[in-house]
């Protein structure tokens, strides 16, 4: 709680939203079920439809985004927040990309339940991209701290008052 005292309400809300969206990304396939029926091969084996593998990847992306979003509560420097925000934005982009037919894809029939689940995931992903972008933009590096002092220049600096 001590860390919260030093952060503005906007920062706290952006951090909490990122964590919530990452959690939603991981839990939505469980709460809004995709296709659960199986395909039967000619040899009699039952295999899941390929949307099943899409949501396995989405779950992993959600867990990874949750871990990264947890880092927002730890990092202090503006540069680190920009990096974390950018990574969250990347996770959102990946979560939108995975259900595309040229990556793993969904089932062919748009009326199947996996498309309904994917719509929710796309909403969370879009919000995660927006939140990551906001965090990255909001954590502006102060103008006087953009360039760290050069140690070589410091050691060679002529002391004040010395004659050149």
């Amino acid at each position, binding site marked *: 709680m001590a860390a919260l005292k030093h952060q503005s309400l906007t920062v706290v809300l952006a951090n909490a939203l990122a964590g919530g969206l990452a959690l939603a990304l991981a839990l939505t396939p469980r709460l809004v079920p995709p296709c*659960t*029926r199986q*395909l039967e091969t*000619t040899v009699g084996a039952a295999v899941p439809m390929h949307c099943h593998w899409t949501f396995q990847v989405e*779950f*992993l992306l959600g*867990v990874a985004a949750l*871990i990264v979003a947890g880092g927002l509560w*730890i990092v202090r420097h503006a540069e680190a927040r920009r990096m974390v925000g950018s990574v969250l934005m990347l996770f959102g982009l990946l979560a939108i990309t995975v259900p595309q037919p040229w990556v793993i894809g969904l089932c*062919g029939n748009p009326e199947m339940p996996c498309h309904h689940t994917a719509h929710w995931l796309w909403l969370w992903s879009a919000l995660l991209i927006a939140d990551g972008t906001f965090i990255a933009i909001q954590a502006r590096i102060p103008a006087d701290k953009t360039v760290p002092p050069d140690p070589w220049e410091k050691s060679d600096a002529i002391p004040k008052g010395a004659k050149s």
Partner: protein
Amino acid sequence: MKWPLYFLFAGVTFAAGAIALNKGWNLPPLAAQGKPAATVPTASDETALPACCAGPSRKPASGTNAPVASTTNEAGGREIVLPGCAGKKHTNN
């Protein structure tokens, strides 16, 4: 003290995710494989009707809702077998 706590959080979250994936808790359980007619998806569900069923003698027995079974052949392609096609395979390599 914050970073050790963060790594603990990351480790526990990752482990919980891995266990959930392993146990299948992240998705609803797949339907049990019972009678083929009840569990096998139909042609309209998973894919469009393959071209090999275009002829009148090769039409599926019950229109587009005939059961479809697909498997992977040796070349890594996908074979879809429609029972109404008299064993005709649609190969997509």
